[in-house]
């Protein structure tokens, strides 16, 4: 099975059927449908339910996913809430848990220290223990790396390309102890996403250094035994114009094939 056929982070959008049709036409065969969720009992979202799903919305989405499975018989469909950093996961009750095939959690956006970064695999692990369902950590470096670039971190004057990027250079660029992060993720058994949208955003900086740092960070994680999962972060699309893709190139560089994605076993996905 090819990596591009596995997408564990695909937003449902306004029409789930259209999204699934697009996912099918773009060769996705194991698809994790998601949306941001919020718990009315414990938090409010400034944007209201436009961008986030309440439990009732989520249960409706679950019903829709199940209903559409027969229309896409060669796809394996899963449903996984996107748990923001602010979401009180202890409030996930049996209804949420029963309706979810797995979970994934987002990193904190504005606290970027080694301590904070280490807390992220811990949180994913805690959600997994609370729910009894597998949980991965979505795009762990996105906000961190983009924030540092926006704050003024620039490519070295005479950047020599990825071969010249040492682990120390990557750790220095990202500003936190990536080795410790990897160790935490491995010890807790938390998988980490390689996210297509993140690559699209980083590519927009044009200079290859920013992309190479991200790529090398994943290489470090892989080398240290972290389980990696593919996700596009697809959020809307226009056929032939836009739509985030599964970042297959990174998995190829790392030598990871579809059969190596251990998270698939945890959610009961069958490789084609």
């Amino acid at each position, binding site marked *: 099975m090819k990596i591009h056929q596995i997408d564990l982070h695909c937003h449902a959008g306004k029409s789930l059927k259209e999204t699934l049709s697009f996912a099918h036409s*773009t060769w996705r065969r194991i698809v994790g449908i998601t949306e941001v969720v919020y718990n009315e009992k414990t938090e409010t979202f400034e944007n209201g339910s436009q961008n986030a799903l309440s439990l009732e919305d989520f249960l409706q989405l679950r019903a829709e996913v199940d209903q559409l499975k027969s229309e896409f018989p060669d796809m394996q469909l899963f449903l996984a809430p996107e748990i923001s950093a602010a979401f009180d996961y202890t409030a996930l009750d049996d209804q949420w848990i029963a309706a979810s095939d797995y979970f994934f959690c987002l990193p904190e956006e504005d606290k970027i220290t080694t301590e904070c970064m280490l807390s992220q695999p811990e949180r994913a692990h805690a959600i997994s223990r609370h729910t009894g369902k597998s949980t991965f950590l979505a795009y762990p470096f996105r906000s961190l790396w983009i924030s540092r670039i926006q704050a003024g971190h620039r490519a070295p004057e005479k950047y020599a390309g990825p071969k010249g990027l040492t682990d120390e250079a990557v750790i220095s660029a990202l500003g936190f102890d990536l080795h410790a992060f990897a160790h935490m993720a491995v010890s807790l058994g938390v998988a980490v996403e390689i996210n297509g949208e993140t690559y699209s955003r980083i590519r*927009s900086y044009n200079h290859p250094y920013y992309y190479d740092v991200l790529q090398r960070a994943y290489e470090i994680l892989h080398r240290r035994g972290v389980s990696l999962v593919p996700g596009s972060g697809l959020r809307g699309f226009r056929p032939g114009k836009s739509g985030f893709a599964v970042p297959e190139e990174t998995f190829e560089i790392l030598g990871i094939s579809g059969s190596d994605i251990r998270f698939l076993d945890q959610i009961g996905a069958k490789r084609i």
Partner: protein
Amino acid sequence: MHVFEIDLHYHAGQERRENKSLRDYIDFAHMTGRKILGITDHDTRYGTRLREGPQHYPQSIEGMMQYRQDLDELRSDFPSMQIFFAPELSSVFEYKTMDDRIIDISDYFICEPASNHEEMELYTELMISELERTKAIANHTGKPTYMAHPFRYRLLNRISEGRTLPEGYMGACSMTDEEVMELIGLDIVAFADHAVSLGVAIEINGGTHYRLRSFNAPYYLDALRHAFKILHRRGVSLVPASDLHGFAPGQSGLSVPKETFEMLGITARDIGFLNQIGAKVE
């Protein structure tokens, strides 16, 4: 100098996002490592196809001249950049009656080719005629001219019509010239040979790469790259460009497709078109 530092197709005129100035666009180009920059805009935005609503410039030749003037006023603020002005001419632009003022303010031109849905022979004829048109514009204006995103709409249309990933696709190394020509529906060898004989350069466009990535399966981007491999092998001069229209730092913005140039073994010094426009390769 590296290929990603060269971007000969960067929109910063009428299609600027509402809250962004020309300075913002050049700032972004600078911040993202571009050192040779071709600022452009579609000719259609300056009179041939009027649009409603607020515009950054009057939809007239005077508007395009103002755009050029704004650019000239900013040059000294970006001394490390070489900035050129190059209108993008649509496939229906009447170049024979082009106002001399457009020629005067332009450092080079970018020609957008037409496309059709015809079978291979007729599409190849069309593309060869577009090469001849590109050359004719260069001759008429006395300014260097290249062809933009040659396969974009043809390839996107054929994918949309149902030409899909082959069963058991084994990756870019398994691709053949015949397979790619069949997918695009173009005799790429004939097209390439004609481009070489006319001395017309062809663009490798970041926007096209972005669109093909959205199909998720790598096959389509592999096919595009293979098409450029054929062009390169036949001696076609290739130019790098993003085709950026808008950007939001950290979120969006098309980039120069440097990976394709790397795959082809083309460095900045190999970009012959730069000599034609007087750009200095550091």
